[in-house]
């Protein structure tokens, strides 16, 4: 059953990606237009789509900072400690 569902989605990958993009757009749109932001903790959160931008930026920052950190000499060959 699980396998059938995965195969079903994989065979319609383009459609899945389209649906995902629509969901993202709807979510950001809902945040910008309809959401009641009285529960926001800070002023910046009132910017439309703040958490969407935050999420994407966080992801990019984490990837690139970590890769940069790894290139400082942190990543080594697997047999490093055996030498």
């Amino acid at each position, binding site marked *: 059953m699980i396998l059938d569902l995965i195969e079903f989605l994989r065979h319609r990958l383009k459609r899945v990606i389209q649906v995902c993009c629509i969901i*993202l757009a709807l979510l950001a749109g809902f945040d910008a237009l309809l959401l009641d932001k009285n529960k926001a903790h800070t002023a910046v959160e009132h910017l439309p789509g703040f958490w969407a931008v935050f999420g994407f930026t966080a992801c990019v920052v984490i990837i690139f900072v970590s890769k940069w950190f790894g290139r400082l000499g942190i990543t080594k060959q697997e047999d490093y400690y055996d030498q």
Partner: protein
Amino acid sequence: MINNLWLHPGLILMAGALILPLVKGRLFRPYLLLVPVLAFGAVLQMPQGVYGVFPFLEWDLTFGRVDRLSLVFAYIMTLMCIIGTLYSLHVDNPFEMAAAWIYVAGSLGVIFAGDFLVLFLFWEVMAFSSVFLVWFRRRPESLWAGFRYLMVHAAGGLVLLAGIALLYHATGDHGFHQLDVSRPTLPVYLILVGFILNAAVPPLHAWLPDAYGEATVSGAVFMCAFTTKTAVYALARGFAGMEILIPLGVVMALYGVVYAVLENDARRLLAYHIISQVGYMVAGVGIGTELAINGACAHAFAHILYKGLLFMGVGSVLYMTGKSRFTDLGGLYSRMPRAFVFTLIGGLSISAFPLFSGFVSKSMIVAAGFDDHLYWAAFLLTLASAGTFLHTGLKVPYFIWFGKNNCAKNTWEKAQDPPVHMQLAMGIAAFLCIFIGVHTPYLYDMLPYAAVYKPYTAYHITESLQILLFTALGFFVFLKKLTPKPVISLDMDWFYRMGGRVFLLGAQRGMDYLSTRAQQYLGEALPHRLNTFSQSGPARLSLLLIRPLWYLTGVTVKGPDGAEKRFTDTFNRSLFTIGSTAVFTIIMLMILLFFVT
């Protein structure tokens, strides 16, 4: 430890562990399940109060301080012990299971300890029993990782003991209560260091990925649940509101995320995310408000389940295929679909997806940070939660079950869903992860304080979904950047791995130098000088007396034919020299002896 009809659940596990090697045949597996169920039952019916107080020398030792804070931890730990044991039913080595139970008993001993002496006793029990869960993997690497784990914890234990001794000396009280965190003294700091080493706070954290990555399949499931969470309990009990824990917690949360990007081994990646998640709890303890402490406890509760589930999911891949590195796996969805679904549920829970357990626990801590106007901490913790989804929710499932198929033919053939008992254990944990997320009173009613928190508001759901889904967008956009490579990342364990080698080399070179110099001066130069001194001493003394007479009589003193040369030659040739040298040496020795004594 039966006192007022109170039975320590740790005692049940310890007794069970001692009998376990004697249980054989068909009784073995039912017995394996029975013991943790009995321990869980003991916690369920446990009333609050103080039990198990024993006088020992001049102290009263308290083995059973039962209140809401200890009960919530004891509940989840004994529950996880059942799930972990169910998952480990395939293990034929009774000593591995006995070690696991004694380890859990150690945690429960700490949870119920009413004073620092009992706490220290069980603290050490945990370290010395859990190391066997690493050693029983029986790889050479496991042996060394186990030794490193033991050394680090022994050192941490000593610091803790020093703190306890100094605190008792200063206050005369050995009770384990909230410490004075507004004006911390040296003993308080020492105890804090002992605790945060077990909580894996950088830079004292490297033992965790080092040991958990090398543990047995079922050993890692136990280890991921107990050591760090016991430390969180100890911090919540003794250090609530200690401000330094807030930055330390935030650093932990981010540190684990950064290393997870670089990690190629799935179990080490999960281990780094333990550091990250425990960072939320440590920060929660540092914030110290009722909501924050509740959040720390709730998150520890949820964490034990979802992290156990993740280690079970990835562990089942390791158990079936013998591989845990992403560069040896990939595309397994068709071979191990159930393990995929369970791991995904664990991933969604740790990522705090709405309707999963992390959503109702992690957000309490972040909300407590915002409420306390600690905006930097709250935003950075939110940033780390994007990283959690990026790795545990996306990278782990994607690169094991989808992505490029790196499986060797042998790996691919061996890959299939794990045995039923493993699936059942994962199923129970997965159910609880969702149940906690859906039915919040189950968890919230167990928390120590009555602080009200409502996770399911439109704003919070939209906020979380935006962060998570746009993180997912980033993941797929930069998928190539995240493709794992067969490398390792240096961490703080470098210092005691390579530090040992540097020390050895330094010691070797240093000793060589010392030895050469000692030979040169003590072995050769000094005896030679002493010899000359003893031999020519009498002649020189005589010369001192005779020389003025020669000068008076006008004899040639210096030069090859001088009186001095002739006198010395004659002196050296005569028998008198031997006797006089002996007498002179003895006199010199006696003078030396006189001055020394």
